[in-house]
């Protein structure tokens, strides 16, 4: 083997391109928002017997959407949805399984948008519950602001999925 081969890039080039750097702030914002949303849905603010935040508040939000789900499905969604959000959000930030995590987030956002549209179509007067009992960008009640918010996040997630090599990622190959 000649020495010239050692100066060449490996067969699978893992250096991030421009889009890999452009996606860094998108990953931090999107991953941070999902982790924040998950935290609000998982951790109740009050340790008292009655609380409107945490899993109880999120379960009521799911019920308020009037989807006709049985109790076991409401309870399952109450606990699995925020944990998937948290795992995907953290992995997106640190850059492990980056594109896979972004794909999961994109899929969840697609479901959220469909649910919000169904709420608007049925003219229900309910809280979004997108970030638990917080609503940093839009009014509490479901409206077109929430659709715009989720579509913007969906666009960012799709961009991350479409980018092959990401900068500042713990695992650039995965």
């Amino acid at each position, binding site marked *: 083997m000649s020495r010239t081969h050692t100066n060449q890039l490996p067969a699978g080039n893992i250096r991030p391109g421009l889009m890999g750097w452009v996606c860094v702030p998108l990953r931090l914002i999107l991953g941070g928002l999902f982790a924040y949303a998950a935290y609000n849905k998982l951790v109740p603010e009050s340790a008292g017997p009655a609380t409107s935040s945490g899993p109880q508040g999120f379960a009521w939000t799911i019920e308020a959407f009037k989807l006709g789900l049985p*109790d076991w499905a409401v309870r399952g969604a109450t606990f699995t949805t925020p944990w998937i959000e948290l795992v995907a959000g953290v992995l997106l930030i640190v850059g492990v399984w980056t*594109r896979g995590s972004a794909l*999961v987030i994109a899929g969840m956002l697609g479901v959220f948008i469909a649910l919000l549209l169904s709420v608007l179509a049925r003219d229900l007067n309910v809280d979004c519950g997108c970030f638990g009992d917080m609503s940093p960008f839009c009014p509490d009640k479901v409206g077109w602001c929430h659709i715009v918010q989720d579509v913007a996040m969906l666009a960012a997630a799709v961009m991350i999925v479409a980018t092959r090599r990401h900068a500042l990622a713990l695992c650039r190959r995965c």
Partner: protein
Amino acid sequence: MSVSRVILPAVLVIAIGGGIGLADLAIRNEKVKLGRTVPPPPPPPLGREPEPPVVEPVAPASNDGKPVEKPAMPDGEPTVQPKADPAVTPPTPKAVASLPPGHITIEQGKALFDQNSIFVDARKSEVYAEGHVAGAFRADMASFKSGDPRWVANFPKDLTLVVYCSGGDCDESEHVAQLLEASGFKTIYVMHDGFPGWKAAGHPIETGEGQE
């Protein structure tokens, strides 16, 4: 799209998050309450007995014959006393049957109002200030975040409560009713048509910050 670099990690993310979520569900399932225990049917409107159908109205009275009074605030400030109007038309069976369990009509709510039941406004404080049922206490979802509101903690739990919000599809009253039930109250009704229905019926209202 690469299966090994995108699809498979996505499946693993869902599997890991879903697995932790199901474990969390097994641990904290009991802490999440769905729906609400339905209280017994509301009493007939004051002054009206089911049999015979027409009875002269009587003044509000407790079991020992003394007039019923709403509990005072912890600091001794009396609450607003509604004007009794016993001439209430009983709800029609059709109207009652169309309501969800635990929900009552405006007229049933008025009957409970005349019996000095406690009314609870589940709407946000700024909406409450614009107008609410006379004497209603304020207890929106946010007021439970740092523990129970003061009146909830201090009032006897055998009182009859009537919770309302904006009527129609609003869910605040149902959720606040669940919180009040978790706080120990046993008899809680949701006034289905909420404040708009109450106001439209011409029943007593008042404005201002009121009591929380």
